[in-house]
């Protein structure tokens, strides 16, 4: 039984050659690699962004009926409508109108609202902080509750906590947001009287000095504690209502990705090495689960912008969502299209951000 004597020598492995520190100049600066990755993603996005403007243009100009009349309003005279048509360039061929539309966008011109004759952009700028505050608060709630709930659900799989959170998830995904808002109002405003029912501050209260437009911050900066409390109370129901659906989604994603991660071999290795269970969950498993979680969270922000429409209407929250619903009732098309354009741009940008974050979290993505 002679032991075979193998010569010990390295078989040249092409993969080995990449890790010598000075093989590729880019390796010295991982920043370069990340920047090129971002650039690549941006280049992919540009046609999509153009497509978005094209789609909005098509929708707004393919409206059956006369756009000029709609802009002028039902009561304008025929002459006024013709003047408007000419001044808006609506008698020009479509491609030319599209170019005009695009250049207008670059200048920040989103059209003029029919309702109040102001540039749509200015309107949106006014209402944006309220929506931002609501969306941010909802996001915080989603992550602060969804992440731990998902982790606990995964770790205590099939125990009572898990079952409850799964039921909660199904309800969340199926919930009509506007109905939830009404039910919350019924319970907390009408029946229990604990929380206010509309607006950002109590009626006839002056808003704080405008620094950021986010009342929770501005009131603190101003030092008005009671206004802060008031703003906070007004925020609770709308934020919860808005976040409910995405909370459920995030919990589900965290749970399922944690379960899948914790079944992996490298977790067994970590356990076999004697690492404490908390370290295994919070360090080794969590970072791997974050990848799908971050993706969904990012996408949710975009959807929150959509859901804000309904929540703001129910709670009379003076944000972009309520603005667009009022515009719909008025058939104020420039406002509607302006809102749609802005929201989708933000959505696309957030997706880019999510992609970049992906690269930071998953080292296998960076190329």
């Amino acid at each position, binding site marked *: 039984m002679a032991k075979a004597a193998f010569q010990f020598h390295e078989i040249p492995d092409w993969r080995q050659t990449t890790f010598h520190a000075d093989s590729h100049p880019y390796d010295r600066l991982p920043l370069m690699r990340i920047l090129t990755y971002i650039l690549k993603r941006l280049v992919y996005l540009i046609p999509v962004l153009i497509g978005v403007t094209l789609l909005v243009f098509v929708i707004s100009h393919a409206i059956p009926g006369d756009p000029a009349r709609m802009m002028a309003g039902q009561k304008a005279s025929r002459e006024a409508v013709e003047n408007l048509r000419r001044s808006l360039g609506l008698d020009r061929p479509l491609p030319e109108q599209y170019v005009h539309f695009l250049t207008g966008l670059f200048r920040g011109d989103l059209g003029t609202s029919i309702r109040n004759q102001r540039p749509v952009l200015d309107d949106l700028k006014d209402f944006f902080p309220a929506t931002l505050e609501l969306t941010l608060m909802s996001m915080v709630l989603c992550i602060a509750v969804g992440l731990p709930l998902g982790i606990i659900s995964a770790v205590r799989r099939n125990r009572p906590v898990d079952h409850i959170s799964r039921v909660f998830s199904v309800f969340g995904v199926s919930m009509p947001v506007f109905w939830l808002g009404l039910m919350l109002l019924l319970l907390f405003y009408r029946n229990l009287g604990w929380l206010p029912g509309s607006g950002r501050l109590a009626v006839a209260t002056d808003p704080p000095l405008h620094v950021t437009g986010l009342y929770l911050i501005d009131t603190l900066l101003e030092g008005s504690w009671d206004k802060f409390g008031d703003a906070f109370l007004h925020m609770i129901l709308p934020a919860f209502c808005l976040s409910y659906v995405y909370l459920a989604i995030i919990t589900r994603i965290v749970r399922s990705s944690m379960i899948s991660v914790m079944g992996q071999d490298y977790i067994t290795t970590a356990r076999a090495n004697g690492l404490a269970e908390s370290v295994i969950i919070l360090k080794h498993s969590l970072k791997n689960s974050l990848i799908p979680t971050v993706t969904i969270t990012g996408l949710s922000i975009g959807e929150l912008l959509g859901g804000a*429409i309904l929540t703001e209407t129910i709670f009379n929250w003076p944000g972009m969502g309520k603005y667009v619903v009022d515009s719909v009732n008025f058939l104020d098309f420039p406002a509607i299209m302006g809102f749609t354009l802005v929201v989708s741009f933000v959505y696309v940008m957030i997706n880019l951000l999510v992609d970049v974050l992906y690269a930071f979290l998953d080292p296998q993505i960076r190329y």
Partner: protein
Amino acid sequence: MKRIRKEREWQIRELMFTIKLLSKNPSAVAGFVIIATMVFIAVGAPYIAPYDPIKISLRERLSPPSPVHIFGTDEMGRDILSRVMHGARISLRIGVLVIAIAGSLGAAIGAVAGYLGKQADNIIMRIMDVILSFPPLVLAMALAAALGPNLNNAILAVAFVMIPKFARMVRGEALAVKEKQFIAAARASGAGSLWIIFHHIIPNCFSSVIILATLLLGETILIAASLSFIGLGAQPPTPEWGAMISVGRKFLMDQWWYPTFPGLFILMTVIGFNILGDALRDIFDPRIRR
């Protein structure tokens, strides 16, 4: 001929197997029961609803739930239970129409994109990406507003929003199926691309399409109700659930029953579809089908 018959036999056996697995899964059964109830209500509404949904009776306006009117009455004295039941008709009809349109168009687009590959695939998918760059409700709202506030336009708007979801999924499956041997065999025996797409690729995606359709049915009903709530879909006095909530909102404080019951039905219906869809997805998971 014989080959087609054998194929049908195999398909039927697969179907029986699926149904057997489904019946053992508690959430599948629960979802199915909920949906079946809703369908029953929807179909039977004209016959089993206690009152005429549009009959006005101002004497009884805004009366609370009682043995006479189980869900109470609205501001015109119409029985809310009957209206809710007719609302099921409308919502389910919207859901089925939207999914039928979006599913067939989306699947066709996806199958073509996946099969053709390279440039065509690239272009088609970029277009789908553009549509997916909008939050669904926002795009549906813009479309519905532009087309005009009525129910049929709302259906078209929501269908448009759903198309890329089907397209994306079918395209992924088509890419996978494309590589399989029998496609090469079919092409070798002279089959044209269109025939291959419709006779081979699409049937293979069938189960995934069904799952997606079930899940998206729930989302469709939600979006449609939201559109009506904003004022862009069904218009009052149509007893559509979202529209009823929109009107009922004014009466929330003193006549709680008005917006509560329609919303409850929306919730139940969507839960039903979501539970069933989830269960279907679990069952079709290849790890579980031995």
